[in-house]
């Protein structure tokens, strides 16, 4: 037998087996996707919607001809399960697999490429045969920093998500080290979950959830209760948390363009107080969200009366100064400088603005610039002792740095000279 014939007859055997004994895994039981397990995987769960899935596969047409194989590319194929990225047969089929499993799938065109086919390899109305191996799967890393991993149990609907400030109704259960410490139905505003003992990670994750979604969230301490922990729930500092959340419903917050100036100024007062409250409790991420609202509402607002303009500027100035403080605490120094720049744009001799910018710059090792800022502070307020001591800190650090540089570069030039001589 030639290789082609061999492949064809092997393909026919597999397809026939599937047609006969294959399990119908379609939700509507229309035999659109039939499956046979070739090699069972390890015990345990199947991948969930949204999970990042790693597979190897081989695809053949009804006549046995291979049209694709991930092994030919020497790379596993990676995709997000249950999101419509792949043909329906795959979203259904891979969701039934366990890690390490190899299976065969026979897919009718309605669950594959239908009447349109897929030029140039797949003809119209083609039934496809796949051999799939599930190598691995892991939860979706929501912010690509390992802070929040999400696994969806039940998908929600629509592409619309709660925005910051939206009112959400959720059911929530919190676990730490296998022990459940919290279980409630709660309605709150996204960004203010803290008021209900809900960590910031939940607020952030909600912005990516769909209506009706039921998911599991794995929070690293940074997005959980941080170093302080939560004594009320008996949780130590730096604890990893697991939450099960169902987003029952939500109402989006008004977009900035939907509010008029009067409303914005009213809300700005409310939000400023909230921000300050969070700041005093050391909840800097939440405070940033509140102050940030003032900026997004008022920074680009036009057509203000003189009175409104004054009020707006006063709110913005306070917001920028407070944001700078928060960013200093969060160690995001570049952002702190940015906020100080904006504050100083509104009030160029603002003592707090200059001082905080100086602090940020000092921590970014920009000693000269920091010194300038502190000197300006003294010009505005000669009594500011803190600024004085900061200036001497700058000078000391500058000297240290120069010493170090001198040593490094001295060696460098000797090295170059030696190399050139060769």
């Amino acid at each position: 037998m030639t290789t082609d014939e061999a492949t064809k007859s092997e393909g026919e055997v597999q397809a026939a087996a599937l047609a006969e004994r294959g399990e119908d895994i379609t939700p509507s039981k229309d035999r659109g996707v039939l499956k046979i397990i070739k090699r069972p995987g390890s015990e345990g769960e199947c991948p969930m919607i949204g999970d990042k899935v790693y597979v190897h596969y081989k695809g053949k047409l009804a006549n046995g001809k291979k049209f694709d194989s991930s092994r030919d590319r020497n790379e596993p194929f990676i995709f997000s399960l249950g999101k419509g990225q792949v043909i329906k047969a795959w979203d259904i089929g891979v969701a039934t697999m366990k890690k390490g499993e190899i299976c065969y799938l026979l897919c009718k065109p309605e669950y594959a490429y239908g009447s349109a086919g897929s030029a140039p390899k797949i003809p119209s109305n083609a039934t496809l045969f796949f051999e799939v191996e599930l190598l691995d799967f892991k939860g979706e890393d929501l912010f690509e920093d390992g802070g929040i991993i999400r696994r969806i149990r039940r998908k929600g609907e629509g592409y619309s998500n709660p925005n910051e400030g939206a009112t959400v109704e959720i059911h929530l259960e919190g676990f730490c080290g296998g022990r459940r410490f919290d279980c409630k139905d709660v309605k709150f505003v996204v960004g203010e979950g803290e008021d209900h003992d809900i960590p910031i990670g939940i607020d952030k994750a909600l912005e990516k959830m769909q209506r009706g979604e039921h998911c599991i969230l794995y929070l690293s301490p940074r997005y959980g209760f941080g170093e302080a922990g939560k004594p009320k729930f008996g949780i130590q500092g730096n604890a990893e948390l697991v939450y099960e959340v169902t987003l029952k419903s939500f109402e989006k917050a008004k977009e900035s363009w939907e509010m008029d100036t009067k409303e914005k100024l009213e809300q700005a007062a409310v939000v400023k107080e909230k921000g300050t409250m969070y700041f005093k409790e050391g909840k800097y991420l939440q405070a940033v969200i509140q102050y940030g609202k003032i900026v997004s509402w008022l920074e680009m607002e036009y057509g203000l009366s003189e009175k409104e303009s004054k009020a707006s500027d006063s709110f913005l100035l306070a917001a920028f100064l407070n944001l700078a403080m928060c960013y200093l605490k969060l160690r995001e120094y570049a952002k702190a400088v940015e906020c100080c720049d904006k504050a100083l744009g509104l009030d160029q001799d603002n003592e707090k603005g200059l001082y905080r910018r100086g602090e940020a710059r000092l921590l970014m090792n920009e000693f000269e610039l920091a010194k300038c800022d502190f000197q300006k502070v003294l010009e505005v307020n000669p009594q500011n002792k803190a600024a004085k001591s900061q200036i001497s800190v700058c000078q000391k650090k500058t000297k240290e740095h120069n010493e170090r540089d001198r040593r490094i570069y001295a060696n460098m030039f000797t090295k170059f000279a030696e190399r050139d001589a060769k």
Partner: protein
Amino acid sequence: MAVDELQAIIERCQILEEADFKGEDFNLFQVAGQKCLEDGYAAQLLEVIQNEKNKVIIKNMGWNLISPLVRCIFMYKQEDDKRENCLMILDQLAQLCNPKELFLGLLEQIEQTSGEQVCQTVMLLLQPLQTVLLKLQNKKAYSVGLSLAMIMNQLTPLPVPYTKQQIQEDKLGLCQCCNAVVDFAKPFVNEVVKNMEKSSEYNDMELKEELIKFCMQSLKYPLLAAQLEQLEGIEDHPFRHFATEITDILWNIGELIPLVFVHHKGKSPHWENQEFADIERKNSADSLACLSYLMFVQHFGVECFPVVFSPSYLLLCNMTHIEVLLKRTEESILSKGLDLFESCLLRMEDNSLLHHYLELRDFINVPQDLVKIMTLCPMEHMRKKSLNILQLFIDKFDTEGKYTLFRCLLKTSNHAGVEGYIIKNIKDQIHLALMKEYDNIWFTGHHLISLLDLVLSLPEGAETDLLQNSDRIMASLNLLRYLVIKDCESDNQTGVWTTLGKIEQNFLKPLRVGLNMSKAHYEAEIKNKKENRKEAHSSNTVCSVTVSGEKMPAMTTGMQLQVLHSALFTFDLIGSVLARVEELIEVKTKAVMDENS
């Protein structure tokens, strides 16, 4: 004599140590060598260079001869012996000279050419350049990158041959040159591939990066503007060949698939600073769009592409690229955008695209770009094509999607013809809804009423310019007529009978008023013109029209009358459909009233 001078300097340098070569020695050598070439003594120069004893001298000083050498090669005819000699000299120099210096000399030469000389010079120097680069140890990757970038920079100002004739003629040699450049790059590609199979050394990442840069540059020029369809009568289409080579390079160094999906991954892994990432994204937008076109329309590299993605996901991934291409005005680039869009849509089944996708910005922007093309593009075949593609796009959406899209386009297109076309689509959807068994909530009932409010209205009431909007008005009237006939008042599936009062107030009444006003106005104009005809034709034109620097002749009274009459005809047409609709409404309402009484 030139040869003697050359001999003299050679002899002098033969006895010197390499380290003792002075600046003036270099100068004398260069001048003497140049003179030899210019006076036609290439053969003698070749001998000198081939002489073993002079190896050290040539190694240090040879690179200075590049410039006069290239000049001479172009001076001599193909068959001339002297040209042969010059080519051999070039070859020898590549073998003997200090690679670093010769490299700079060659690059300098390429940088200095321009216009018609560019391709010839590049093709001439590619071989020695390759030899030299393969000899470099340190900084090879950097030098390869620099060479490729320099060459492509020099080629970029040249026009890309587009028609079959232009390609066959290849007047400036661009087609040939591009393919020569990919051949030139092959050994470096092979090196990267070989090193990929071993461990990853830092140096090889650099060479791979340079090759990626070269491919991205090539995608932007010449491929983005090139004609890439199969052409009858051209066996080996040079740009198709070039495109195949580029995709092959990307595939071999393992970057083809990642690049096709790069924008979809979100954060660019290369840059910390968001600003740099944004700049990179903007610069690479054209290249990536071209790559998608190559893969999905011309099927270059599609062998390697996974065949498991859903068609709607492929459309999603390509929308950014389609948008980039559709924003351009050059025919070659615009047509690629339309082809890419069409090919993505043809992979989908009708009614399969979920309305959710319209929540994404691209999916709203792109149909508006299509509308711009079909109304503003000067090329008729482009206008027709983009209209076809818009219809295709509409067909692929589910009913809620169609509904949303119609609303959006009615609000944003600002063009009566397009609005009329959309209204016709709405009529077709209502027709389908009425015929089907199950409830289509979007084209019946209260959703439809809300849409009808948009459709069955006059934008400026009775003062609407009826001529300007005639396409739209006719389509609206036809739709209303259809509804009145098809949907019995007892059924009222479409809800038209519920909203009839509003329709009469917002549409039918002002339309009647407007028609009367316009007809009266135009009839008065016609009467005036006819009376004035008897008087002398005055040249008191209110305004004049200048096209291409030539002033258009004023319209004769005869022409003006023609225009006015045709306007009247349009009003009559609208009026007659309006009358028919009103008649139908009256009949039906009366029938119901009779029934009820």
